C-alpha cells in the first residue's frame, strides 16, 4: 500500500495549476507533432528539451511526457483519416482504420482508436505504479557487473526480437556505440576517435542524431513517396462516442491480449512499432472475424492501438527504475533527466520521490487529458494536415535546425543533423534499424563504464559476469537472445528435415 500513498503524494505534486496547464500544452503540442510527418515523439521532445532547462524538473518532465502521450494519440488521426501513419507505430492502425473512414465510419474508428490507446496506456501505467518500485528496490543491490549484464540483455534483445537481418541490427548498434565513444574517455581522459578535430572532442550528442535520423530522414522519405494529403472528413459527436463505447466491451479479449503484448514489448526494448504489428497479427489469427480484417473491423483498430500505447508507456518502466530506456523516446526523456541534474536509476526512487511519483501521477492525468483533447479537437488536427507539404516541410527543417543547434549551441551540430538525416533515409530504406543505434549512442558510455568497472573489480576476469545466479542468469538470457536468430534457424531446418 506504500505505492498508493506515494501515488497520492504524486497527484498532489502533479495537480498544481501550472503543471496542469503544462499537461494540456504538452498534449496539444504532442498531437500536432504526431500528426505532422517528420516530427515524431522522439525528435519532437528532443527539439523542445532545451526550452525546459529553466523549468523545475518535475514540471519539465510532465510537459515532455505529455508530448509523448499526445504524439501517441496523434499518430492514429492521420492513419485513420489520411491512410498516412504519422508515426511508425500507427502503421498497423491504417489497415482497418482507413477502410472504416472510407465507409464513412471515421468517427467510430477514431473513437475506438483513442479509447483503446487510453486503455493500453492506463494498464501500462498501473503496471508501472506497482512494478517499477519493486524493480528499483531490487536494482539497488546491483553492482557494475549486474548493470553491465542488464545493458547486455537490452542490446541482445534487439537482435533476438528484431525482424530484419541480425547483421544489420548488430552493425547499426555498433555504429551507435562507436559514435558514443567519440570524444573524451571518461576513465582515462584520453581523446578517442577524434581524428585530430577539436570540434569532435565534445562527441556526438544523441539528441542531434535523433533530430536528424527521425526528423530530416522522415521528411526525405515523405518527399520520395510524394505525399498528397487526400483526407476523409471526420466528425465526432457524443452520440458516436457513446455508441462506439457500447460495442467496445465485446473486444475485451483482444484488449487484454494486446495489453500483455504491449507491456512485454515495451519493457524489453521491442518498442511500440513491433508491438502494434504483433498485436494486429495475433488478433487477426485469433479472432472469429479474422478473415474480415483489413476491410474495416473495429477489432483491427483496437488491437494495434492498445498494444502501441501499452508499449510506449511501459518503455518508461526500465527508464525510471534502472536508467535504461526501452525506446528512443524514453532515451530522450532520460537525456532530459541527466540535463536537469537527476541521475536516472534505482536511486531515483529513494532520493527524488516527489519527482518520480509526480511523473507517474502525471501519466494517469495526462492520458485522461489526452483522451478528452483528442476526442474534442479532431477536426482541428485534421486541418493541420491539409496545409500543403511545401509549406510544412521547410518549416519542419527550420525547427529541426534550431533544435539541433540549441542542444550544445554548436553550429557543427546542424551539419551533423543533415548528415544523420541522409543516414536515416538510407538506413530506413535498407532496413537498418535505428532504435538500437540511438540506444547504443545513449547508453554506450555507461555500458562501457560498467564493463570497465567490472573488469577492474575482477582484474580482467570475464567470469565475473557469471559469478552469481543473478548476473549469470541475465547474461545467459542475453546470450540466448543474441544467438536466437541462429538457434531459430537450426530448429526450423530440423523441422523441415523431419517433415521431409
Amino acid at each position, binding site marked *: 500500500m506504500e505505492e498508493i500513498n506515494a501515488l497520492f503524494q504524486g497527484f498532489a505534486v502533479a495537480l498544481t495549476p501550472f503543471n496542469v496547464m503544462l499537461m494540456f500544452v504538452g498534449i496539444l503540442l504532442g498531437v500536432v507533432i504526431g500528426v505532422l510527418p517528420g516530427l515524431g515523439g522522439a525528435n519532437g521532445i528532443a527539439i523542445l528539451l*532545451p*526550452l525546459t532547462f*529553466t523549468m523545475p524538473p518535475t514540471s519539465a518532465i510532465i510537459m515532455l511526457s505529455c508530448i509523448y502521450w499526445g504524439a501517441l494519440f496523434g499518430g492514429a488521426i492521420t492513419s485513420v483519416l489520411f491512410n498516412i501513419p504519422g508515426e511508425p507505430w500507427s502503421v498497423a492502425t491504417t489497415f482497418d482504420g482507413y477502410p472504416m473512414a472510407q465507409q464513412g465510419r471515421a468517427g467510430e474508428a477514431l473513437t475506438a482508436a483513442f479509447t483503446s490507446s487510453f486503455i493500453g496506456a492506463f494498464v501500462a501505467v498501473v503496471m508501472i505504479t506497482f512494478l517499477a518500485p519493486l524493480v528499483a528496490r531490487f536494482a539497488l543491490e546491483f553492482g557494475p557487473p549486474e548493470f553491465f549484464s542488464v545493458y547486455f540483455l537490452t542490446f541482445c534483445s534487439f537482435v533476438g526480437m528484431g525482424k530484419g*537481418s541480425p*547483421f*544489420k541490427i*548488430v*552493425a547499426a548498434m*555498433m*555504429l551507435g*556505440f*562507436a559514435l558514443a*565513444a567519440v570524444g573524451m*574517455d571518461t*576513465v*582515462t581522459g*584520453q*581523446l*578517442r*576517435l577524434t*581524428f585530430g578535430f577539436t570540434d569532435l572532442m565534445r562527441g556526438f550528442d544523441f539528441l542531434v542524431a535523433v533530430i536528424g535520423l527521425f526528423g*530530416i530522414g522522415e*521528411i*526525405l522519405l515523405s*518527399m*520520395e*513517396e*510524394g505525399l498528397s494529403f487526400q483526407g476523409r472528413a471526420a466528425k465526432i459527436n457524443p452520440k458516436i462516442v457513446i455508441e462506439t463505447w457500447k460495442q467496445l466491451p465485446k473486444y475485451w479479449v483482444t484488449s487484454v491480449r494486446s495489453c500483455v503484448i504491449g507491456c512485454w514489448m515495451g519493457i524489453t526494448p521491442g518498442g511500440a512499432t513491433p508491438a502494434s504489428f504483433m498485436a494486429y497479427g495475433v488478433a487477426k489469427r485469433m479472432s472469429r472475424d479474422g478473415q474480415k480484417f483489413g476491410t474495416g473491423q473495429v477489432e483491427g483498430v483496437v488491437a494495434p492501438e492498445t498494444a502501441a500505447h501499452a508499449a510506449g508507456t511501459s518503455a518508461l518502466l526500465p527508464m525510471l527504475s534502472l536508467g535504461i530506456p526501452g525506446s528512443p523516446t524514453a532515451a530522450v526523456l532520460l537525456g532530459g533527466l541527466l540535463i536537469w541534474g537527476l541521475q536516472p536509476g534505482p536511486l531515483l526512487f529513494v532520493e527524488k520521490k516527489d519527482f518520480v511519483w509526480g511523473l507517474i501521477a502525471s501519466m494517469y492525468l495526462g492520458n485522461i487529458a489526452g483522451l478528452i483533447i483528442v476526442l474534442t479537437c479532431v477536426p482541428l488536427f485534421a486541418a493541420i494536415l491539409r496545409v*500543403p507539404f*511545401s*509549406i510544412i*516541410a*521547410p*518549416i519542419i*527543417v*527550420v525547427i529541426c*535546425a*534550431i533544435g539541433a*543547434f*540549441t542542444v550544445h*549551441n554548436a*553550429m557543427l551540430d*546542424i*551539419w551533423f543533423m*543533415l548528415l544523420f*538525416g*541522409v543516414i536515416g*533515409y*538510407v538506413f530506413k*530504406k*535498407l532496413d*537498418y534499424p535505428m532504435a538500437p543505434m540511438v540506444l547504443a549512442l545513449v547508453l554506450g558510455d555507461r555500458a*562501457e563504464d560498467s*564493463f*570497465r568497472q567490472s*573488469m*577492474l573489480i575482477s582484474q*580482467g576476469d570475464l567470469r565475473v559476469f557469471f559469478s552469481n545466479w543473478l548476473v549469470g542468469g541475465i547474461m545467459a538470457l542475453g546470450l540466448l537472445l543474441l544467438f536466437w536468430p541462429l538457434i531459430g534457424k537450426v530448429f526450423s531446418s530440423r523441422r523441415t528435415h523431419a517433415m521431409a
Partner: protein
Amino acid sequence: MSTQAPTPGDDGQAVSMHTMESVVAAQLFAIGASVAYSSWNIGARWADDGPQAGYFPFYIGVIICACSLVILLQAVTGRLGENKSFVDRGPLRQVMSVLMPATFYVLGIQLIGIYVASAIYITVFMVWLGRYSWLRGLVLGVAVSVVAFVMFEVWFQVPLFKGSLFNPLGFLGY
C-alpha cells in the same frame, strides 16, 4: 550519390538495391576499420590498471567490420532478396529537391545566421516547389523567423547562431 543504368523516362531506377547495399556495407567497413585502427593507436590492450582507453572501441570497430563484410557478401551474392530499385529517378529528384535546398540552408546558417537564412529558405522553398507567389512565401518566411526570434532571443533568452561571415541582425543589438 552515384547514378547508374541510364534508362529513359521518369520511372527508371536510379540506383539498385544491391548497389546501395554494397556501397553502404563498404562504407560501414571503412568506418569500422578506422575506428579499430584509431583505437589501436591509443592503446587497445590490457594495462596494469585495467583496460586501456581504446579497448572497448577497438572491438566495436572489429565487430562493425565483421558485420559489414557479411552484409557485403550477401549483397554481392544476391542473398539479400530480390534486386529491386532502391530509388527511382522521379522520386530521387523529389528527394534531391528537398535535400539540396536543405544543404544550402545549413550553409546559409553557417554564413549569415539562423534567422535570415530560415526566412530565405522558407520563401525559396515555397516559391520553387510549392509554386506560391513571392509575396506569400516572403510573408510566411519572415513570420516564422520573427516568431523564432521573439521566442528564443527575447522570451527564453537562448541565443541562436548569428553567422560566421556577418550578422545581418547585428543592428538589433542581439
